[in-house]
């Protein structure tokens, strides 16, 4: 049990390999927390349904493949769009009605939605999950000298970096991103400029959902496509967002990757604690820097 004291320092190759593996998991955390951060920035709600949307993305890929024979690569585009539309519907039908209320209501509403979505999929598909194979192009592994890196895992790192970079570019360097940032600061003012803020809100939630779905498709070939996959990851991703600073794009990405690595290291030294270390860090960060590492004070 509490046996971490007896673990010797791992040899360097294993250390490097663990670092890389941590980075891969961090990629998932980064994409998911990025979506949460964008949603939180504009809507001010913690989207408890994010895990469910991630699971929907993975299932969407599975539906596409097993019902329509549509490949992984197409699913990587189609699933985020489809789940993004679901997200927009959720925003229109539910979240808009409570937009003016205490933001904790948003947390509770999305918590309820997550229960419904998870429950329905568990009812329909059981919980041992559906297999989804790694696309032929990415099967096999590359010998890096210090480790045997599966090609698909390498792709996960590349894809997650790319998605984070693109999202960052859209938000920081494009007109729609500028509007988004402005609306986050002062929705009334942006409205006064003739911008349709409610539509912007819908699109934002849709984009957050699409990011979650992208992560889901990315996860499908390595993890089992299972109704439980969202539940298992959501509290961890929450912690990541809180550590990064709620609503901070850069914070979400950096802390996503960083915590993936920290978690990976914990798995070597004290594996039993690997699911908890992130919460310990979260509590520490909140105490020392309550707005998160990259958040604005307030």
């Amino acid at each position, binding site marked *: *049990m509490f046996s971490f004291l007896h673990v010797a320092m*791992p*040899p360097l*190759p*294993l250390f490097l*390999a*663990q670092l890389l*593996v*941590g980075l*891969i*998991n961090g990629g998932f955390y980064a994409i998911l927390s990025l979506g949460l951060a964008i949603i939180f920035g504009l809507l001010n709600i913690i989207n408890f349904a994010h895990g469910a949307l991630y699971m929907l993305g993975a299932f969407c890929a599975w539906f596409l493949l097993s019902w329509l024979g549509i490949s992984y690569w197409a699913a990587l585009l189609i699933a985020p769009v489809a789940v993004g539309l679901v997200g927009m519907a959720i925003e229109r039908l539910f979240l808009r009605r409570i937009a003016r209320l205490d933001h904790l209501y948003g947390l509770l509403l999305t918590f309820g939605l997550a229960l419904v979505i998870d429950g329905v999929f*568990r*009812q329909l598909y*059981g*919980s*041992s*999950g*559906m*297999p989804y*194979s*790694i696309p032929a192009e990415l099967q096999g*592994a590359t010998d890096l000298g210090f*480790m*045997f890196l*599966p090609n*698909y*895992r390498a792709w996960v790192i590349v894809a997650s970096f790319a998605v984070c970079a693109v999202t960052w570019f859209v938000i920081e360097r494009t007109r729609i991103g500028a509007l988004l940032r402005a609306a986050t600061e002062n929705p009334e003012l942006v409205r006064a400029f003739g911008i349709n803020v409610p539509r912007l809100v819908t699109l934002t939630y849709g984009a957050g959902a699409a990011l979650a779905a992208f992560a889901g498709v990315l*996860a499908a070939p*390595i*993890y*089992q496509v*299972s109704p*439980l*996959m969202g539940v*298992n*990851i959501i509290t961890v991703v929450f912690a990541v967002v809180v550590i990064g600073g709620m609503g901070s794009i850069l914070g979400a990405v950096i802390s996503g990757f960083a915590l993936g690595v920290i978690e*990976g290291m914990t*798995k*070597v030294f004290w*594996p*039993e604690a*690997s*699911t908890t270390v992130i919460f310990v860090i979260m509590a520490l960060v909140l105490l020392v820097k309550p707005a998160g590492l990259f958040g604005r004070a307030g």
Partner: protein
Amino acid sequence: MKRLTVLSAFAAALLLSAGAHAQIKGNTVKIGVLTDMSSLYADLGGPGSVAAAKMAVADFGGTVNGKKIEVVGADHQNKPDIGAAIARQWFDTQGVDMITDLTTSSVALAVQEVARQRNKVILITGAASSDLTGKNCAPTSVHWEYDTTALANGTGAAVVKAGGKTWFFITADYAFGHSLQNDTAAVVKASGGKVVGSVNVPLNTADFSSYLLQAQASKAQIVGLANAGGDTINSIKQAAEYGIVKGGQKLAGLLLFITDVHSLGLQTAQGLELTGSFYWNQTPETRAWSKKFYAVMHKEPTMVQAGVYSSVMHYLQAVKATNSVDGPTVMKYLKSRPINDFLIHHGHIEASGSLVHDMYLYEVKKPSESKGPWDLYKLIATIPSAVAYKLPHGNQCPLVKG
């Protein structure tokens, strides 16, 4: 006094909850299938177990000594407190006479305590922990199907014999995982093997990369997976990705069900060795029974589901013979004679409650060998009952004299 409205709302809420408890013990024999309906083990037990119990009742003729036989099912959600609460309610208010299935060791241990206090029969087909017939054994409970001892004796001994001398364990960090690891490690050592390392993994871990790399670095010949359900599936799947098997190491799944293998696909699972007590395509009898099961559930049965049928059948025969549902009476009958059917071979129930019977070592087929979606195993060896259930350190069960 409109205030009464709220009072009556409370009363209504109370009465609402009354409905479930109103049934009186009538002229029926009631069998409870307490299983995981919605979570990790729903596919290997769950609705399939309820269906199997109903099949047994139908095959028995629907009545026993003029009393109607009824089957009820419930979801324990893999939580021992919920399982114990349902069992208590079933015994106390709903006239349930026997409970079967009981997937998940923690739930089975909890329900065994409830049954012990009430002298009720439970026939466990879903849980693995050998503690159920070890230090926690109970006089009216039978561990029907398999336990960690049998799994360890099967897979552990067979793998060492085939040359797998050094082991690294990836263990689910909870009592069942530890018990499976300890039992297997004991067998490995007794057979001349060596354990070079192990890592405890939190339950429901999605990513096993880190642990697999540790296993790889250990250079052990065998990576033993002391886990179950989704954890096993994920670890096998990811082991394929990291080329564990290609690198010369071998995986040993210590508790694998046919639904797991089906879910993994043969491409990933091929070559795995596993111990079990039942495979649908093993004998003409198992095929005949599985065909009936398939007609209801549209999938092949797991050993847990087959065990539910077997346990219900033997229970009903005991009730018929003794004309009683009294726990000790029924148990005395069951323990007094050999147990044999399509599933159980060379079986008898020991004083500890362990149903000792033959186990089998299977190997997962190559994709080229399989003729259909459920054509998954080939039989490698039969492990005779005396070998399969041999305890390395003797039994701690207080019911065992010695």
